[in-house]
């Protein structure tokens, strides 16, 4: 997914004719999904405050279509796991992930969510990919708001290019089975 410099949400490639434009269904659905990702801010510690900075007026994640923050997993598309996830918190994170409606994506924001970060201790879950499948990892402790926005943009590229049949494909089922999420 090459990164074009200034993209005013470039139209997907397709056949342009006299007064009509034809493209693949995946592209259209992907474009719609990519620009309306509703985040579920699973903010536990310091990265949560950086997320507040990202949502505030200066860095404004709303420019990427994530204006409406949904705290219930039912209407959330993208689970932003920000901050340290302890072992006591793991079942809750997993429950929230399972109750999210498909299609769902996960961004592990910050070193603690991606790999346990500097807290290699008995009480911290060493990376949320031990519990739920993760799509994008954002490094940093805490990552700057630009990095969080860059993580969301990476996810938008993923969403744009996701095919309709991915969620029913064998690899996806096997990935979920490896986490024994049925």
């Amino acid at each position, binding site marked *: 997914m090459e990164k074009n410099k200034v993209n005013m949400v470039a139209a997907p490639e397709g056949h342009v004719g006299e007064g009509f434009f034809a493209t693949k269904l995946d592209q259209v659905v992907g474009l719609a999904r990519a620009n309306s990702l509703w985040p579920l801010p*699973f903010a*536990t*510690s*310091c990265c949560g*405050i*950086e997320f*507040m*900075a990202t949502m*505030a*007026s*200066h860095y404004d994640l709303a420019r990427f279509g994530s204006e409406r923050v949904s*705290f219930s997993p039912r209407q959330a598309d993208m689970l932003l796991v920000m*901050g*340290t*996830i*302890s*072992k*006591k*918190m*793991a*079942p*809750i994170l*997993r*429950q*929230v992930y399972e109750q999210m409606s498909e299609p769902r994506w996960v961004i592990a924001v910050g070193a603690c969510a991606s790999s346990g970060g*500097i*807290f290699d*201790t*008995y*009480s*911290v*879950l060493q990376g949320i990919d*031990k*519990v739920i499948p993760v799509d994008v990892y954002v490094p940093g*402790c*805490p990552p*700057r708001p630009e990095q969080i926005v860059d993580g969301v943009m990476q996810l938008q590229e993923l969403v744009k290019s996701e095919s309709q049949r991915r969620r029913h494909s064998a690899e996806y089922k096997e990935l979920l089975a*490896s*986490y*024994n999420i049925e």
Partner: protein
Amino acid sequence: MQQFKMGKVTLPADHRYYKYIEERHNEDGSELAILNLGPTHPATHGIFQNILLMDGERILDAEPTIGYIHRAFEKIAENRPFYQITPLTDRMNYCSSPINNMAWWMTLEKLLDIEVPKRAQYLRVIVMELARITDHLICNSILGVDTGAYTGFLYVFQFREKVYEIYEEICGARLTTNMGRIGGFERDWSPRAFELLDTFLKDFPVAWKEFEDLFTRNRIFIDRTVNVGAITPEMALDYGFTGPNLRAAGVDYDVRVAQPYSSYEDFEFNVPVGKSGDTYDRFCVRNAEVWESLSIIRQALDKMPEGNVFHADVPDYYLPPKEDVYHNMEALIYHFKIVMGEVPVPVAEVYQPVEGGNGELGFYLITDGSRTPYRLHFRRPSFIYYQAYPEMIKGAMLSDAIVILSSLNVIAGELDA
């Protein structure tokens, strides 16, 4: 894929509310409800769970469960040399992390009785008061969000970005600052930091005045916060309250005044005290404290001693600058000894209290002469005063419980350190 053993998280059968689930009738036929103000809840602004026993809208009893981001700071601190513990301290109360860092450095300076030069002390006072402003700024604007006024948050958060820029000039990081060294700072403040500080001091008071006018005389805000979650001074003292929550109850205890550290005695500032200890008083005390902090910063800037010394001359604790290390032998030896942690540390116990964003933040350090502390205990104000939360919301409405929680400014990082 190594699978993580999963425990079931549910209300245990022997829980004292369990009997309410079966037979729980009320005189008007309605039933007591059990509501779980759980870990992932938008209103709790942190990760703690309260199981509320409620009769309709009124709360009869609450039971908090914490520890959802317990990261064993004290265990890590026992395995790290002294100068590597500062990244832990600023992840405790991450809304005002420079205060924690400076508190840790002051504990070490007290242990090794190092005399920090006046100018470095003044610089520390400025950065601590900036951190206090940002801490109160977040707490009051989130209290506004909880009573329905979202603009206050967006409007005032802009100035937290300005303070982030000042932090970046001083130590390169925005939130988890990891600032300072034993004896002072790692580098002198660049002129740009002072410029940013001056522009901040010029246009923040205007914005803060408007923020204050937005709330203090606002009819809805007054209805939602006046005598909500009121605490008496005796109850506050009994539950170990310190800081703005205690001063709102009418007790004027402030560590900066009771036990002045880092030359706080050179500045005159008065300690705002509330009357009735309710949420409105907590809001007003934090507002007034921001004005006090601004005046302290101005006084510190005026009385700043000349010259550009920014750290004490203690070579065997203070990392020598890199160019010295390459050129002369002693600096190389000192550098090596400090980095390998072979610094001479006495066998002693020391307790250093500091006025943090939420109250008295204390570092109790026991050393046994080795390169790591033998035991380091953090007196975390959020952990201590959060015990009073069930007591404060008994009989309150559910919407009041949310407002009380955000007025207490409980920071989850400090709660479960």
